[in-house]
């Protein structure tokens, strides 16, 4: 068999291993999906009445409108939340003796990491399906066409791929699983300091500047545009651009860390 065939076969083996881990440790997956759901319910039912009324041109107590507004932020948060689990499982692997076993075997080196990436993407897809399901139950309305839905799914997949590689890097950089679980929390909270939950125009100058320029804002704006059936071309391009940058940095960083940590 060729090197590529081995890489695919080994990655599939590692993916099976990671899926088994998820099945054996369902509380983690539930927690990771639960976090964005909790925020969704909290923001729609607790804050929704007041917050919705504050949206430009909204009638009083517009929970439905606010649900539509925050769904992109919740989607972002879902992807970020699953990535906590990825960072933790990568860090756990690295602190366990099993990583040395893998390294002394004639397997495709990248497969240890691709197994995590593929597993996390399946987990993210599951989480996003649940979040979408609940959002629709709560009354999410969308004017997206089939093509726009397809674009949305594609963009979510790209984002999840990029974020996963980045958090694989975080997991590799962390000395232990506890530290690894802390870093991605920033990504869960970052939608708040962006266009996730309130229009950036309502923020004070300094924060507004940050919110307008941070990578999650154009991504969330692109989601919002696609869901509304009127995507802005530049937002989508910026979103794709940021995902490519995050993913590429994450991948190169992970590859480098995996090699150098091998030499310790």
């Amino acid at each position, binding site marked *: *068999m060729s090197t590529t065939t*081995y890489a695919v*076969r*080994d990655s599939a*083996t590692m993916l*099976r*291993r990671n899926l*088994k*881990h998820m099945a*054996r*440790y369902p509380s983690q997956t539930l927690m990771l999906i639960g976090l964005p759901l909790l925020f969704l319910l909290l923001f729609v039912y607790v804050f929704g009445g007041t917050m919705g009324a504050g949206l430009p041109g909204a009638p009083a107590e517009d929970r439905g409108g606010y649900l539509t507004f925050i769904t992109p932020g919740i989607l972002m948060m879902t992807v970020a939340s699953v990535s906590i689990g990825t960072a933790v499982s990568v860090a756990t692997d690295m602190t*366990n*003796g*099993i990583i*040395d*076993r*893998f*390294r*002394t*075997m*004639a*397997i495709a080196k990248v497969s240890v990491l691709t197994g995590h990436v593929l597993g996390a993407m399946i987990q993210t897809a599951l989480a996003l399906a649940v979040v979408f399901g609940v959002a629709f139950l709560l009354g999410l309305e969308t004017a997206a066409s089939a093509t726009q839905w397809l674009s949305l799914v594609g963009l979510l997949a790209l984002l999840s791929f990029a974020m996963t590689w980045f958090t694989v890097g975080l997991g590799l950089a962390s000395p232990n699983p506890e530290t690894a679980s802390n870093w991605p929390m920033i990504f869960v909270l970052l939608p708040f300091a962006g266009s996730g939950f309130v229009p950036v125009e309502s923020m004070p100058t300094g924060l507004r500047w940050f919110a307008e320029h941070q990578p999650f804002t154009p991504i969330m704006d692109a989601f919002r545009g696609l869901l509304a059936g009127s995507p802005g071309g530049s937002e989508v391009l910026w979103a794709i651009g940021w995902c490519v940058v995050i993913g590429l940095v994450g991948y190169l960083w992970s590859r480098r860390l995996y090699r150098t940590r*091998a*030499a*310790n």
Partner: protein
Amino acid sequence: MTTRTSAIEVAGLRKSYGDHEVIAGVDLTVPEGTVYALLGPNGAGKTTAVRILSTLLPADAGEARVAGYDVRREADQVRASIGVTGQFSAVDELLTGRENLRLMADLGHLHRRRATTVVERLLERFDLVDAADRRAATYSGGMKRRLDLAMTLVAGPRLIFLDEPTTGLDPRSRRELWGIVRELVADGVTVFLTTQYLEEADQLADRIGVLDGGRLVAEGTAAELKRLVPGGHIELQVADSERVAELARQLPEAIPNAEALTVTLPHDGSLTALRRLLDGIDDDGAVTGLAVHTPDLDDVFLALTGHPTTDEVPS
């Protein structure tokens, strides 16, 4: 096909961390089908040596060929030829014993049917059949070690590295593991192991390298190493303390011990010296026993390094 006779060949191996030289110029050769034990206290550089030879760590200088391949330039070929059981448990605790072995079979690119056969055979051989479908997290220390070693053997390596394989095991598990290593050797597998237990090296190894401060301070068979130290002695058990004193006067080199009722004499191991000694003792029943002690590896280690071995188990 070239015929190889050396499973491991190492020349001038060096490795430093900053100013600290962990491996300070090691040369060694391990012939195929033999057991080589690297013996030394904690911090002697044993694990570093194993990590270099198993491609986990690049050396700073020197040549190392494992299974005929250069560890640096032909790392993948080396990996395909070896099995490694590290010092710390390398089992996946969320998977069952059977799944762990299956994982190794899949990563070893075994065919499906062959994989199933190998996994079942190893479960039997390592006495893990009853626990096969339990998660490894529930295993005892000895069971984890057995699973760990079984995982190393899935792909059928002809050369295996065992880094302190019995550290932290109870005496029974240790003996079980020794038995497994002997079986492997009987199958023609080459074993490179590290240990801080002198008895273990003595029990298992064809050749022993004594590592201290990153240097091989001695190398040879257990018997050869013991010959390096002239510390043998004869111990006589004596009926009463009066006769102890009497013997001590009679034999100028004797060290009497009135409380233990023994007399100890230095001895070079030769039959002549033993006969001369016996001729000098009256056969009137006062000497109730005689024991000839050859030096053990503890004596060797002390004589070679100037300090005793540390026998504590690393945390």
